């Protein structure tokens, strides 16, 4: 499969890299434009005066006269750990710094605006040490979804009301590396090895899954200048389904060095090495040999409303509310060609965020920005996992917009803070299992994000 040439150029210009894990909620990302980041991710009611408006409000392209180009990236540095109950043992995450890019081009003339944006609305990198206790859920997980959004906007009422929108063409790639837990594997008799006494967390292999998929959606926006000093806006980005049908799974065996203690039933007889019983799974036509695997991840809808107030000289105050349709993330099916299928129970609810931002023009040109947003996690208490230990987020940001003639540079810094949350390192195998039964420790997570964007206006 190939990408459109224009998209390829934009990606090259943005220095595409895998996106990071400082996300709005769950695996959502808001690092889409440095101005918006610095203003607490506000941009629906009072869009930034750059081409990232194509994302923050697709109707806003009409507010930028001429040709606008905006491109940049955010460096996301995540820090996290898991502290186990009783022992207090702390295990640190080992997440590489990721750099999600963004690039937008918009041309507006005579009440009409055309543009295209390339951005990363959903991304995730979760990575732990190789011997992490929770490696059976995930040792490394990565999801990178890029949306390409051609957009048209039109001033329905000149200078007052605009509408806009366009299709969203998404490409998503996923990677998952995890250890295989023998206690949850089933014997030919149908019971699990755990029921035979194998302890949870007995690694007998490693799995690596990789795949990608395309998806299609739509993004629409509405923007209104209600008065001289008040703007209102709304946008809706549809849910996009990604079916990773041709993903590949690879497996390697890890020796357990366990020996059956006593006669149970053939082939589990005293003195038999368990690794000998398992070896056949990893060779020939065994269940744990290289094979196709498929999964499906629904990227949720986004609905945002916002307002902007410019009644104070040189000052913009912005307030946004956004709803995320995370309840689409109910289960994560993983269907193997030969290995037993799995269906991970997620049971996310919808999430939401409230955002505030302020921008002040110093000396009429240099923009000083600050913002705060709170994002409510959509993850239930029973779904805080090594794959995604999601929790409520408190985002604090500052930034500067530096004009350089027709060009400009935006700089921004964001702290993502959380209060931590209890979570689990074991798989949830049944809906009847409660968070109290599953959770065995505490996840901490925070991030520092540095963002920079270049702006050009012709």
């Amino acid at each position, binding site marked *: 499969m190939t990408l459109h040439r224009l998209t390829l150029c934009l990606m090259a210009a943005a220095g595409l890299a895998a996106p990071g894990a400082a996300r709005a909620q769950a695996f959502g990302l808001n690092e889409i434009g440095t101005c918006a980041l610095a203003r607490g991710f506000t941009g629906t009611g009072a869009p930034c005066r750059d081409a990232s408006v194509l994302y923050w409000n697709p109707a806003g392209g009409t507010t930028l006269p001429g040709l606008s180009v905006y491109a940049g990236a955010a460096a996301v540095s995540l820090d996290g750990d898991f502290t186990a109950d009783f022992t207090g043992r702390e295990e640190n995450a080992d997440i590489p710094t990721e750099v999600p890019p963004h690039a937008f081009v918009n041309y507006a003339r005579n009440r009409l605006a055309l543009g295209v944006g390339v951005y990363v609305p959903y991304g995730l990198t979760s990575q732990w040490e190789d011997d992490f206790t929770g490696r059976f859920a995930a040792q490394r997980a990565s999801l990178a979804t890029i949306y390409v959004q051609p957009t048209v906007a039109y001033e329905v009422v000149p200078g007052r009301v605009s509408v806009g929108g366009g299709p969203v063409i998404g490409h998503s790639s996923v990677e998952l590396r995890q250890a295989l837990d023998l206690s949850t594997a089933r014997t030919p008799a149908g019971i699990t090895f755990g029921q035979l006494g194998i302890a949870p967390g007995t690694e007998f292999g490693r799995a690596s899954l990789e795949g990608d998929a395309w998806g299609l959606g739509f993004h629409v926006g509405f923007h209104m200048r209600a008065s001289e000093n008040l703007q209102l806006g709304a946008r809706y980005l549809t849910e996009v389904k990604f079916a990773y049908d041709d993903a590949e799974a690879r497996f390697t065996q890890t020796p357990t060095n366990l020996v059956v203690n006593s006669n149970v039933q053939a082939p589990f007889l005293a003195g*038999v090495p368990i690794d000998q019983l398992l070896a056949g799974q990893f060779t020939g036509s065994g269940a744990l040999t290289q094979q196709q695997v498929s999964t499906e991840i629904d990227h949720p809808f986004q609905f945002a409303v916002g307002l902007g107030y410019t009644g104070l000289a040189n000052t913009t105050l912005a307030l946004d509310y956004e709803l995320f349709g995370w309840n689409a993330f109910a289960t994560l099916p993983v269907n193997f060609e030969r290995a037993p299928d799995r269906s991970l129970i997620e049971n996310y609810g919808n999430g939401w965020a409230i955002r505030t931002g302020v921008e002040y023009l110093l000396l009429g040109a240099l923009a000083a920005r600050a913002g705060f947003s709170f994002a409510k996690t959509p993850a239930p208490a029973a779904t805080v996992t090594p794959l995604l230990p999601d929790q409520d987020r408190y985002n604090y940001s500052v930034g500067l917009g530096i004009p350089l003639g027709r060009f400009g540079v935006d700089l921004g810094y964001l702290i993502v803070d959380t209060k931590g949350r209890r979570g689990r390192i074991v798989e949830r195998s049944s809906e009847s299992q409660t968070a109290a039964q599953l959770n065995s420790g505490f996840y901490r997570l925070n991030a520092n994000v540095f963002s920079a964007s270049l702006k050009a206006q012709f």
Partner: protein
Amino acid sequence: MTRNQILRAAAFALALGAVASCGEDDPDILQPGPGGALFTSYVALGNSLTAGWQSGGINDSTQRESYAYLLAQQAGARFIIPALPRPGCPPPLAEYLNPLAVVGAPTATPRTCTFRSTEVQTAPINDVAVPLAFAWDISRAPTPTGESNPLQTFILGGKTQIGRARDAEPTFVSLWIGNNDVLAPASVGVFTTVPGASPGIIPPDTITKYIGAAVDTLAGLSTVQGGVLIGVVDVPNAPRFFRGSALLTDAEFKAKLDAAVDAPNASRTVFVHPNCAGSTALVSAVIVEQIKAGAYPPIISCEPNPQLPPGFPPIPPEARLGDLFILSAAEQQTLSAIVAAVNAFIQAKAEGANFAYYDPNPALAALKASGAVPELPDFTSPTAPFGPNVSLDGVHPRRSIHVAVTNALIGVINTKYGTNIPTIPSPPPD
């Protein structure tokens, strides 16, 4: 509000938020209770007493009545057991002298063996004791010797008790082992090795060798901060054994024996040899179960090679009258000497390892003296032949005695380590 005021307010709010988030909050994790850091991870090793065996079987209900489980509860320690769902593996007896009446009958039988529970387990198990374990089993690696006890696999999952203990990174350990080493030959009254019947008497040096090695290994674990070693039970204290002479001096006791057994002979009674008069021999109640099942002739002799009355039906020599299921005075002294030697060793080992030590024998003797454990069984009681505090196999206690053991252990632990673990508020066994 002026522009500057707004900006100052915004900056202040941001700074306030940033300060509020500065510094890590303490993690919201479960902490040990009254036992403190000492009981961050408590691991119990041993045999059926520690595993929670009762009435000839085990399930997750009896497992939760073990002293080890109760001690963990009082210390506020996480204590994950290798849960065996009801009916069990095998299911405990529900009725004395009726082997088919087990927990979960009629669908469950004495041969039923449930697999481990599927309930979620978030950490390594803490009770790694295996029923029927001898001292050498604590560290013995699995071998292709035809081991037939499935519980070794279900509990240990391919490792040894020491191996599973390591997995839990224990801060406190308890070890109660050696009981089967003396009880196994004592229960059948045969001190020579008879395949399928008796392992023979095990020299104390052998028992102490394995116990010593286990204690050294446990004390040497970097995470271990303390422990308690529990002495071996002196066999005569076990309720399973009763005075043979009582069969001649206590008519009611004899009548109940006859009623329970309902021997398949003309008199429907058990013949008690006159050599039991004044005898100090102890009789294992296992003989009663064997007679009832028709696997042993309805005769009890307190001396070997007894002279039987004329006209008595011939008895096969393998019945070993007066030997099988009988403990002579000399045999009792041998067992007591072994127990004393082993317990002296265990006590010294505990001191060397800075562990606590508890000898259960004075308390068990006191229970018999007080009548909490009847001196003589009531074979006609289907649910309490050895009293209300001992289970139907005549060896393994019910919860009430586990509570007494727990409280005694708490006493020695608190004394040794300065902890403040509360005892279980419970009346002493009646």
